[in-house]
C-alpha cells in the first residue's frame, strides 16, 4: 500500500505492506539508518523514534498507524541539537548503536522535565539499553543538556 508519512519535517509517499513495522519502512524506503533494530520486541529502545514528540518503538508500530503524525528520527535533529552536543561532550557512547534512541528519548525527557533528578533520569531511560554500559556518562550527558537548556544567557 501507499503511505504518506511526515518525517523530520518533510512529507514522503512510500510503499509498504499494511503489516509492516515503521522501523523497516523508515530504513528501506527513506534510508533512515539511525533507526536500528535490536531486540525486536520493544524493550531495548534502539529503534526509538518520536511520534508527535513522544518516544515509541519503531519495531512495534505498524507503519500505517504513523500516517498523519510527525515522525522524528536522529537524522532530523541535525547533529547539533543540544542533546546531541551534550552526548558528544560527555563521551556518552561507545559503539553508538543505541545512541540515536537515547538522544531522542532524552530530548523528550527534558521537554517534560527540564531538571530531572538522578532517580528520574534512571527511571525515564530504563527502556533504552546500552550494552556497552555507558550509563555513567549518559547520566552526565542528560545533566549537561539540562544545565545548558536552563542556563541563563
Amino acid at each position: 500500500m501507499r503511505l504518506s508519512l511526515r518525517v523530520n519535517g518533510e512529507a514522503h509517499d512510500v510503499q509498504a505492506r499494511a503489516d509492516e513495522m515503521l522501523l523497516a519502512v523508515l530504513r528501506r524506503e527513506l534510508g533512515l539508518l539511525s533507526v536500528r533494530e535490536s531486540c525486536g520486541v520493544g524493550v531495548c529502545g534502539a529503534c526509538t523514534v518520536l511520534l508527535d514528540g513522544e518516544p515509541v518503538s519503531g519495531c512495534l508500530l505498524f507503519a500505517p498507524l504513523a500516517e498523519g503524525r510527525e515522525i522524528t528520527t536522529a537524522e532530523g535533529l541535525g547533529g547539533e541539537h543540544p542533546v546531541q552536543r551534550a552526548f558528544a561532550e560527555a563521551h556518552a557512547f561507545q559503539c553508538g548503536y543505541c545512541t540515536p534512541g537515547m538522544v531522542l528519548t532524552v530530548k523528550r525527557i527534558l521537554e517534560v522535565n527540564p531538571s530531572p533528578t538522578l532517580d528520574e533520569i534512571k527511571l525515564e531511560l530504563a527502556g533504552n539499553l546500552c550494552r556497552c554500559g555507558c550509563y555513567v556518562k549518559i547520566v552526565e550527558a542528560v545533566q549537561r543538556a539540562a544545565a545548558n537548556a536552563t542556563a541563563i544567557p
Partner: protein
Amino acid sequence: MVSGAVRYAADVELTGMLHARILRSPYPHARVLRVDTTAVPSGVVVLTPDDVRGLGAYGCQIKDETVLAVDRVRHVGDPVAAVAARTPREAEEALALIEVEYEELPAVFDPVEAAEQDAPLVHEAHRVSENPAAYFGLRPEAGTNVCHRFRIRSGDVDAAFGDADVVVEETYRTAAAQHAAMEPHASLARWDDERLEVWTGTQTPFNVRADLASVFGIPEERIRIVALPMGGAFGAKAFVRLEAIVAALARKAERPVKAVLTRPEEWVTLNRHPAVITVAVAARADGTLLAKRAESWADTGAYADCGPGVAQKIGYTVVGPYRIPNVYVDSHCVYTNLPPNGAFRGYGATQAVWASERLMDVLAERLSMDPLELRLRNVLRDGDAFCTGEIVHDVRFAECLEAAASAIGWSEGRRGKGLCVLLKGMQTPSRAAVAIEVDGGRFVLRCATTEMGQGARRAISLEAARLLGVESEQIAFPNPDTDVVPYDTRTTSSRSTHMMGRALEEAVRDLRESSGTRGFGEIRNDGGLDPDTGQGIASSHWHQGACAAEVRMDEETGKVDVVRVHASVYAGRVVNRPGGELQNEGSMIMGLGTALFEAVDFEAGQVTNANLSDYEVPSIADMPELTHDLIERDGAEVHGLGETALPPVPAAIGNALASLGLHMTELPITAEAVLEAVDRGRKSDVGAVTAG
C-alpha cells in the same frame, strides 16, 4: 555517533543482493535423515547439507564445524539448511517449506557429566586446526568429550597440603551468559570471478579469512574481508559466525547474499562458557599461601570455537595474582549439546576469578584475618615468579587493592563490603603490524584493528598523532580490509592499544628513516604455555585490577542491593582518558549483570529466555554508584583496559555478601539463592576442611 551516521554490517547492501535465513535444528542431538526442499519455490536459493558436504571444515582452534550440520545436529539451533531470497520475508516463508527428518540421539548438557567416560559423544573423533588461532598444543582426550585439557604442574602440592595449617576447598559455578551486543550479527558476501569478498562485523578479519580459505579450498589471497564497525561485540564477533553460510549461499546463488541474525538466534549462535571450578588452597596460620589445587570444566557447547583457549586462561587465572610455590591445575574444555560457547569479555577470567577470589575470603574467615591483609601478604610483586615460572614485572596488584579498599572505606568497617583482585593475561603469542601512508597532509593508518565501540580507532589515532607530532584530525583510519592492511592477530584480549601502539612506534621510525611516504612497523609478543606443565610465558604483560563492592541485603526477599562498586585498574599510561573511563564503567556494569541476574536458561538443551525481555541485561536503573581509578606510572607501557574491571565485580559482591554470613557459590547470585542461604540459618555452606 550522535546523529546515527555510523554504518554497521546490517546497513550495507549490494545491488541484486539476496537475504538469507537459516533453518535450525529443534533437537539438541539428532541424526539428520532427510532434508527435503522440493516445496521451496524455484526463485529461492536453498543451501542443503549436500551442498556443503564437499567443503572443508573450519574452527579457530579445532576444525569441528561445517558450513551446515552434515548428517548430525549437535545443538538446538545448529544450522541444517539456509535459503536466500529477494526479501527477508520471502526467505522466512521458504524456511517453513523445508522438511527435515531427524532421529534423536542421547544428549548431554553438563560439562562434568559430559567429561565422564560413558557420556554420549558430541563428536565421534577429535580434530585440531592448523590456523594461527590455535596457538598452543591441543590435548584432546580420545573417546571422551574433552577436546582440550590444560595442566599446571609446579612444586609438590601433596606435600604442601600435608604441611598446611589450614586447607579450604569449594566448588563454584558460573552460568552461561549472552553477549547481547545491541547490533546482531550481520554479514554480506559476494563472489566475483572465483574471488570471495565479505563485509562483516568481525573482530578477527584474518582468522575469518583463514577459516573461509579452509572451507572453500582456495588461497587466502583470493578472499577479502572488510571489517565494518560493530554495534558491540564483547567476543561474540570473534571468528566465523555467519560468514561461511553467506559465502556458500552467495556462491550457489551467483548473487551477493546478506544475513542478519534475529535476536533469538543470538542465543543459539554463541554464549559464554558455563563453568564448574573446584578449587582448594592450603595456607599457614599466618596466611602465607602454600599450595593451590584446581580442577575446572569449561562447557564449550557443541563446537569448540576458542574454548581450548578459554580453558587455558581459566587454568592459570584461577591461581590468582599470588605467590604460590606449589600449584596443580587440571582445566578441561568439554563438548556438550548446548549451543557453542566462545570468547566473552573477561575470557575465562570471569569464571576463574569468581572461584579463586571467593575462596580467598573463605580462607580469610577460617584464619580470622582481614581479607585485604591476606591478599596483600600474598600478591605478586615485581620480581616474583608466577605459577607458570615467568617472572612478573611492573605489577601493581597491591596498589590496585589498596586503592579499591580505600575507596569504599574498608578501614572504617568491613560489614557489607567485599574485595577482589585479579590478573588477566593478554593474547600471547601474537603479532601486530601497521602501515602509515602519507597522503598530502593526512596520515592514513592501514591497520587491522577493528572497532566495536571500545574506542580502538580513537586511541590508536591519538597515539599515531602523538608519535607523528600532528593533530589527530590529520589521522585517517579506514575500515580494516584484508586486501590492504598488514596481518594482525585479532582484536581481542584488550591487546590492540598496547600492541598497535608499539607497532606504530616502529612504523613512525620507518617513515622517518625511509622515503617519508610510507612507514611500516611490526612487532610480536612471544611466549606461550606448555599444555602439560603450564610452564612458559602466559602473557607478555598483565592486565591488573581490583574491585570493591558494598551491598545491602533484604532478608525478606533475598534481594541484593549493590550500594556501590569501585574498580582500580592499572593503566600504565592512559592514551584516551574518556575511552579508558568508558571501558572501566562498561566492564563494571557488565560484571554487575553477571553477578546478579544474567544467565542463559536451558531446558533439555533449549534456551528458554532467548529474548531481551526474559534475559535481563543491566539497564540504567540497575546502576549503583560506580567509581574507578586508572592507575598510571611514569614511564610505564600502555595496558589494555577493555575488560579488566569486569571479572572482579561478581567476586567483590559475593565477598560483600560473605561478610554478612552468606556464602554464595553460584553465579548469578539470584534472590532465590540468597534466600536459601538466609534460610540455612546463615550457616556457611562452605565445605571447608581443616588439616592438621
